[in-house]
């Protein structure tokens, strides 16, 4: 039997409910994933997560929403976060990508149907999120040669950092809830 269960609505403290409502507003959805309500016992976790989602994901507007969601799917795939992987594929489906296309992106991330600039964005998000220790000055030289400014690269790093944090929160929540049937 699992230690954790997803709290019922009436068990959620007002401060936690506030942050879950804020997440609903940010995402434009009615229900939030259990990987979020799982943390409702500690409202400041939700506060930090919602702020990070808004500031590092939603406001990373130097790159298209499409490119960001594809990058997130690939990071989730690489980091084996089933919850993030599934959620990103639902979003990409609503953007018009079908399942075979999405499978193709995972199998061959170098061949994405994006502009060259956005392909590089996705490649670097994936690279920074999966192995930041391998980053070196030559990577930044390549990015500069492709027209990326220092502030562009900082947005890429911020986005990659958010994907890493989010995959951990989501993976652990879903693993902890696995035997609870949800």
């Amino acid at each position, binding site marked *: 039997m699992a*230690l954790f269960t997803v709290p019922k609505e009436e068990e959620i403290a007002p401060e936690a409910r506030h942050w879950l409502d804020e997440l609903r507003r940010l995402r434009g959805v009615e229900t939030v994933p259990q990987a979020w309500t799982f*943390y409702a016992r500690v409202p400041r*976790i939700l506060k930090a997560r919602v702020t990070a989602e808004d500031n590092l994901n939603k406001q990373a507007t130097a790159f298209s929403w499409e490119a960001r969601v594809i990058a997130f799917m690939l990071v989730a795939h690489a980091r084996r976060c089933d919850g993030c992987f599934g959620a990103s594929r639902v979003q990409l489906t609503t953007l018009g990508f079908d399942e075979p296309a999405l499978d193709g992106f995972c199998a061959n991330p170098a061949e994405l149907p994006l502009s060259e600039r956005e392909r590089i964005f996705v490649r670097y998000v994936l690279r920074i999120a999966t192995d930041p220790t391998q980053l070196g000055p030559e990577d930044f030289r390549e990015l500069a040669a492709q027209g990326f400014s220092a502030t562009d690269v*900082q947005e890429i790093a911020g986005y*990659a950092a958010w994907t890493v*944090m989010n995959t951990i929160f989501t993976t652990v929540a879903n*693993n902890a809830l*696995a035997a609870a049937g949800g």
Partner: protein
Amino acid sequence: MAFFDIPKDEDLPAESRKLLDEYQRLTGAKIRASNWQIFGRFPKIIEARFLAWKNLSSDMPFSADARMVAVMLIAHTKRCQLCFAGARFQLDKLGFDEDAMDQMCANPDTLPLEERDRRFVHYTLRIAMDSANLAPKDFREMEQAGFSKDEILEMIAFAAYWNMNIVFSQAALAGLAEE
């Protein structure tokens, strides 16, 4: 020449300056951390990092010793030089000498901490390094080791925060490296 520059204070938006000052004050550092200052032109990044640090790492119900040892070991395993050095700086202030810190890195199973703190370090390191392989029985084990549900959530948060911070720090370090 490095790709990133470290912006001067007067070049930073007021929101960033305020949060960077607060971070410096709360960490007791003599100077601003370069891996934070670099991102200072983006108040949204600074705000996200500051609130994450405060809520997921700093205001945690575990001892400073245990938290800093956990950061040092996560940074050591993930090879983040900046986080590793920062954790050792804080551990030095807490009274740990270099030999003791080296010993902890070499043998994380025999930490000179109280049993509860040792378990905290053990579980946060595990979550930080291998979150995909945790199973319900692992959370039962944490409970049996004396951690409440809230404390287990705090450990997850701590591990998630330091993984995020390592990404920022590694990007900053690479961007500051001279060619």
